[in-house]
């Protein structure tokens, strides 16, 4: 159950002006990135990560949550205006948003997307706030073998983010595990793969890897492409505003799509894109006018946007309570917390419950800021979609370099970042996904640490993993999750659905 005393304390934490200002800045930056085709939500979070070094943990997470929540909605602006999803999560919004814009109803589509995002975000965060303490209390019973089993389960999310080839996802994950091993061995402190470079003793910094993996390949591949695409922008009239009656008539759609999206959000590895398509599918399935879908249906926009925004709150539940990231962006958020000395998981709930509650409260704050900033963006949408990405990408390149250098003040990090960037570029042109790489890098040290601790406790016997009900349950779930994902991969192989989800 929710501890209301702690909840009250966390309200005071959130109401600090620095925290609120950071959250607002995150919302503005997230919106900016969201409306810029080619810049993804994860890039927005990664680029902002170095700034959080100079902040207290509360302000840092406020900034990142603001970005996380807003980038999802921001992607729908370009999806509706120019049929180019700003982020992959907005892919389903294009289906009805762009036809509405072509019919001169761009403003209605944008407002519907904003309000549906807001409502779904609020509802799903309430659900997350209620179920979180139950999960976290249960997680307090975990020792090394149980945590190892949970990590094995969470590693199966790699299969979920592997796109249309599980084999490529596994290759990427193996690279991630290997790069995570650079530095000192977690148990004995022996050097591994440092090749005599002193700066490698502490391992590759998480930020170095994330910036290299997500930002550099994007700049190399998309910079010129984005400039070419800029010339094709065509925007019609904005049209009339959305009436309250129109908005209120889709309540059942918001609820259905939010329920579907929340369930997907709480499962590891699925993220916003499938949730958006599920929300869209549910809206169409129960609509009185299903024939309008795909030709400019406000209900379609509502379903897709409610679906993808309802992921945010529930995706934080497994991350904060068990240390399992729900998707790639939450994996980066988890990395950010680790940077600030806060290890998500049951122990964090025990030691700093007010911090955990404040994270969920910050989601509410971010959604309110989203409503304010989003309303402003709708009025400027005609100009916003004309952002000069050919100038933006070089600026991002410089920010990425400065940010990486600032973390530890060493050029080795900058060079490592570019090396990982080029590796990421090579993987990308081979269509090997980056997300499994990053997730394996983040989970790899935890995996090794808990495995070896368990082996020391048991004197080298693997029976320890089968002596606890919790460990057996999670290992069973891991097997089930891997089996289901492999089966789905096999069934969807080569279809458009697999390509859309992987993109």
């Amino acid at each position, binding site marked *: 159950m929710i501890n209301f005393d702690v909840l009250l304390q966390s309200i005071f934490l959130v109401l600090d002006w620095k925290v609120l200002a950071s959250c607002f800045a995150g919302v503005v930056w997230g919106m900016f990135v969201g409306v810029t085709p080619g810049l993804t939500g994860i890039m927005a979070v990664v680029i902002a990560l170095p700034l959080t070094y100079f902040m207290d943990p509360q302000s840092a997470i406020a900034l990142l949550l603001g970005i996380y929540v807003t980038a999802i909605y921001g992607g729908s602006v370009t999806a509706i205006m120019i049929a180019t999803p700003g982020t992959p999560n907005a892919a389903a919004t294009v289906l009805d948003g762009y036809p509405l814009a072509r019919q001169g109803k761009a403003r209605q589509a944008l407002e519907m997307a904003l309000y549906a995002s807001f409502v779904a975000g609020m509802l799903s965060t309430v659900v997350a706030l209620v179920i979180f303490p139950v999960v976290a209390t249960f997680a307090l019973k975990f020792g090394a073998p149980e945590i190892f089993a949970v990590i094995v389960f969470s590693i199966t999310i790699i299969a979920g983010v592997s796109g249309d080839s599980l084999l490529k996802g596994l290759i990427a994950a193996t690279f991630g595990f290997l790069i995570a*091993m650079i530095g000192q061995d977690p*148990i004995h402190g022996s050097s591994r793969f440092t090749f005599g470079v002193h700066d490698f003793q502490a391992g590759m910094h998480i930020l170095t890897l994330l910036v290299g993996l997500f930002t550099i390949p994007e700049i190399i591949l998309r*910079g010129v492409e984005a400039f070419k695409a800029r010339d094709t922008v065509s925007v019609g009239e904005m049209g009339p505003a959305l009436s309250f009656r129109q908005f209120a008539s889709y309540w059942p759609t918001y609820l259905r799509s939010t329920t579907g999206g929340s369930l997907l959000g709480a499962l590891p590895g699925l993220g916003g894109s499938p949730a958006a398509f599920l929300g869209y599918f549910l809206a169409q399935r129960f609509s009185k006018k299903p024939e309008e879908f795909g030709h400019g249906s406000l209900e379609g926009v509502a379903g897709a946007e409610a679906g993808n925004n309802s992921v945010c709150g529930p995706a934080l539940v497994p991350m904060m309570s068990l240390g399992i990231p729900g998707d790639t962006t939450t994996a980066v958020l988890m990395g950010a917390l680790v940077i600030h000395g806060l290890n998500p998981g049951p122990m964090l709930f025990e030691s700093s419950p007010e911090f955990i509650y404040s994270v969920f409260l910050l989601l509410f704050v971010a959604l309110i800021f989203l409503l304010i900033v989003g309303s402003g963006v709708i009025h400027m949408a005609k100009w916003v979609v004309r952002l000069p990405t050919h100038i933006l990408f070089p600026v991002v390149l410089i920010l990425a370099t400065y940010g990486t250098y*600032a973390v530890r003040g060493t050029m080795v990090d900058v060079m490592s970042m570019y090396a990982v960037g080029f590796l990421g570029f090579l993987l990308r042109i081979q269509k090997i996904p980056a997300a499994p790489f990053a997730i394996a890098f983040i989970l790899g040290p935890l995996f090794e640490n808990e495995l070896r601790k368990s082996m020391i406790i048991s004197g080298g016997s693997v029976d320890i993993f089968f002596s606890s009900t919790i460990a057996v349950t999670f290992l069973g779930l891991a097997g089930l999750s891997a089996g289901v994902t492999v089966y789905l991969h096999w069934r969807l192989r080569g279809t458009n659905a697999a390509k859309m989800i992987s993109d």
Partner: protein
Amino acid sequence: MFGLVGYFVFIPMAVYVPEQFVGTGNSPAFLPKVMFILLGVLSALYLGQSLIVYKREAQQGHVRTSDWLLAGGTALICIGFIIAIHIVGMTVGAGLTVAITIFYFGERRPLVIAGIAIILPLLLWYFFVKIAHILFPSSWLGLMDWLEAARPAISWFA
């Protein structure tokens, strides 16, 4: 190939294993060995798969030569930036890199290019060096280092 090199070259060369843990599951080299074997097996499978679908992929021709050249050019600019940092320092290197990249991406207005190439690195220099107190790496021709060193003299003249 990388898996084999890793297993037979990298691990013996770059992983220190205390004597009492040699050959045990608790050795620092145990998991790296597993990962390199896994990488070798997965890569072999990928190679086999690629050979089977090679014809189909080649027929699709999804990557054009011009795109390769454009991407390669951007990669070269990134490498040039690292070299520039060592020669002219972070601030001047960033200015040059921004100018070249913006030009390369299609911008032709000299005022826009020059404006961004001057203002952005100076803003970043002010934020990182003056506000966050982060020392930038020294360089052979570090212009900002010289200006910083010459500041007492400049203020004396002023």
